[in-house]
């Protein structure tokens, strides 16, 4: 049996620049962490949507979900390559070192679950990227200008499907309600401002998510109203993804995603 390659261990407690001297040297540690947060969100959600490939409810939706996945993997590639060696970060990091939010790692469930997750995440991502275009960091600003168009479409598509499923048949509506119920408790994490995020907000690198929390709430409410759905009751928020405290689901996702490069470290194609 092939042995796994060694896993990089963070130097020092800050968690800064583990995979890239540049990050540890010139960049503020929080800046590096922020790139990982955005990059891991895109990578994990892209992998999740990619799981639909070949399993979509109809051919057109299958292609549609694969397109969304490819957009996200493209975003992850840019972000993780900016943070360091993108391939190493994606395929040779262990679950505790991932910095994605818990929402994006939630299982696909049925199509309505996937749409609920996508609506809740991409609405946030779109609002964040609109503001990130003003980032003091040139890379992030340019990245945001490119990605904001992709994500505008994601948001639009997720909203349209939410409306059709919510205001569809009894079954589609019930499934949409279930999907929202499941994913709702992971939304507060998107607006949490910890020390790391505060450091990049203070440097003008990242937008403060609390500045668009209200807009997010009304945007989601507007879609739900059109879908003739009630917002789920607020649940106890679940936090921790940004610090590497993930649900059991992420480990399974990474096992599939990382299997090949970890088993055959020298594989090329």
């Amino acid at each position: 049996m092939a042995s796994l390659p060694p896993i990089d261990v963070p130097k020092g407690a800050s968690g800064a620049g583990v995979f890239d001297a540049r990050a540890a040297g010139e960049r503020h540690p929080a800046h590096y962490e922020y790139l990982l947060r955005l990059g891991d969100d895109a990578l994990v959600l892209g992998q999740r949507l990619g799981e639909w490939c070949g399993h979509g409810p109809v051919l057109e939706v299958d292609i549609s979900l694969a397109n969304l996945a490819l957009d996200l993997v493209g975003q992850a590639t840019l972000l993780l390559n900016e943070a360091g060696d993108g391939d190493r970060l994606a395929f040779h990091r262990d679950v505790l070192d991932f910095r994605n939010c818990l929402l994006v790692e939630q299982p696909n469930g049925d199509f309505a679950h996937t749409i609920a997750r996508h609506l809740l995440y991409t609405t946030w991502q779109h609002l964040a990227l609109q503001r990130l275009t003003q980032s003091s960091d040139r890379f992030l600003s340019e990245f945001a200008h490119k990605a904001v168009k992709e994500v505008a479409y994601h948001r639009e598509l997720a909203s349209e499907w939410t409306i059709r499923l919510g205001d569809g048949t009894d079954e589609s509506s019930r499934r949409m309600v279930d999907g929202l119920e499941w994913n709702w408790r992971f939304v507060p994490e998107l607006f949490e401002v910890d020390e790391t995020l505060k450091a990049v907000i203070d440097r003008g690198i990242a937008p403060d998510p609390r500045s668009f929390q209200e807009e997010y709430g009304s945007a989601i409410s507007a879609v739900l109203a059109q879908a003739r759905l009630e917002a789920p009751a607020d649940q106890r928020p679940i936090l921790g993804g940004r610090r590497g405290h993930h649900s059991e689901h992420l480990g399974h996702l990474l096992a599939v995603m990382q299997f090949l490069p970890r088993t055959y470290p020298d594989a090329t194609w």
Partner: protein
Amino acid sequence: MNGDWPLWEVFVRAKGGLAHRHVGSVHAPDAQLALAHARDTYTRRMEGVSLWVVPSATIVASDPDQAGELFEPAESKIYRHPTFYDIPDEVKHI
């Protein structure tokens, strides 16, 4: 599920100035999602700058059984091609 969704014909304009061209069809529950499906299926490699979708059911097609009477008479009318004129050398782009 697919059986419940009507079919839509998809037309793509490759670039400004060109006409929309028929490229294929998609299933979708309504016009807006038909546009989304057309976008995701037919323009993912930068094929176009504009899209039309049209309910396939609204297209009126000629009857293949009438192909003889409709199209064959044109076969013997080669004089309808403007190939019997001498074009002066000074005239370009014809």
